[in-house]
């Protein structure tokens, strides 16, 4: 039997309420973590800083080779596809600007964020869920260790710093990959290529990358932490938490990306 209008309204209401509850809980989590950061003394900061370094190593350094490889490939493929079309029009000089438009503005930050979601957000959610079920979070709190300071803050800082570095490396690798193909396959010299890239870059391109790293990285870390710490009783909740993390992170990253594109370039 088809659901009645009333039932559809109820379902919609429940979904909206759940969505708002999750945003409220996330805002609370972010607020508590920022407050923990602001009121942290130097000795605690040293302990937390060790965790930040570990997070940067896992999210940033360990992912570097993968990000560079994907960046090189994307740059190369973009140039192969674009050059065929552009050369027919005698517009080979537009290779650089096209790489800036496609890779640096949009795909670079987005793909770096997707790789971080795949590698790190899943790991953060699974690790925190496992810690919660193993009573590690309760034990930390009992001993006077604020989980927001010790668990969440390092993961958020680590994700933002790493994502910024990965976005920069991804962009550089994509430009290098694009240039290598343009040079080897089509004989494009370095000078015109760089001139094209420089000409297409705007001031907005320079500050939007750190802004995206901040927004994407923060959103990824806090969504992963939220869904990880939301488990209650069973190990079977861990894969569910990971799945919810991935879906939520994709959603929020695409929404932020769309909003920024509309606000800055629209």
């Amino acid at each position, binding site marked *: 039997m088809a659901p009645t209008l009333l039932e559809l309204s109820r379902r919609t209401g429940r979904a909206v309420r759940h969505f708002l509850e999750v945003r409220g809980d996330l805002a609370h989590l972010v607020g508590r973590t920022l407050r923990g950061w602001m009121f942290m003394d130097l000795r605690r900061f040293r302990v937390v800083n060790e965790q930040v370094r570990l997070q940067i190593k896992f999210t940033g350094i360990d992912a570097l080779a993968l990000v560079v490889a994907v960046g090189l490939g994307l740059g190369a493929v973009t140039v192969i596809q674009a050059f065929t079309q552009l050369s027919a029009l005698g517009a080979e000089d537009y290779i650089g600007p096209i790489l800036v438009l496609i890779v640096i503005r949009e795909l670079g930050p987005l793909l770096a964020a997707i790789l971080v979601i795949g590698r790190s957000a899943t790991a953060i959610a699974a690790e925190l869920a496992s810690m919660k079920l193993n009573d590690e979070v309760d034990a930390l709190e*009992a001993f006077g260790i604020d989980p927001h300071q010790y668990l969440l803050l390092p993961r958020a800082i680590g994700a933002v710093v790493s994502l910024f570095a990965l976005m920069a490396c991804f962009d550089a690798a994509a430009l290098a990959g694009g240039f290598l193909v343009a040079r080897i396959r089509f004989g494009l010299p370095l000078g015109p290529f760089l001139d094209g890239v420089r000409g297409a870059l705007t001031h907005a391109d320079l500050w939007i990358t750190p802004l995206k790293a901040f927004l994407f990285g923060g959103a990824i870390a806090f969504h992963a932490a939220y869904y990880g710490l939301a488990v209650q009783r069973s190990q079977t909740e861990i894969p569910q938490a990971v799945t919810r993390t991935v879906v939520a992170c994709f959603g929020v990253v695409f929404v932020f990306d769309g909003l920024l594109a509309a606000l800055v370039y629209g």
Partner: protein
Amino acid sequence: MRIVIEGLRLEGPTRGPLARGLDLTFGAEQALLVTGSSGSGKTRLLKALAGTAHPLAGRVERESHLRVGLALGRGGLLMNSTLLQNLTLPLRFQGMKREAAVERAEEAMAQLGLGPVGELRPHALSDRQRKLGSLARVLAFDPDLVLLDEPLEALDPRDLPKVRAVLEAWTTDPAKAVVVATERAEDHADLGALRLDLDEDEETP
């Protein structure tokens, strides 16, 4: 130090004081033995006393600066850190320098015979060593309120004298309050007069 429990009701238990609402007051130089079958709410009560479990009703009142040490029946040690790091973390977070924290942690581990496994992570330890590690973390932290969940479970007979000596030192320390939760009250016959049975059907007059 004074810990006041008023009308405390926790999620889980369907009978006994924690289902009806528990009232209890205890303080320094007192040891409270909490007994009850599995699922009666012993661990949850310890977590409520530690401030990490939120009650359905009622409250636990204690001084905010109280140092609390919690050794859970299972788990609780950070799996991504070595045993030594597990012991030093609470001390360093309270502001102790790393060298002093390591010294204190090594003393605690030596007292419980854990010296050789300090650099291992909990997943590489036996259940017995993890249990001793949890107790060593409390010992190193030197808390005012000691909360222990089945402290003698999973131990070898050769460990018992060492652990009993530590328990006795805690329960006779005039600055400490100790709460021991167990299914086996007979293992703690020597513990103080304050007892709470979470399986109790009727309220004691």
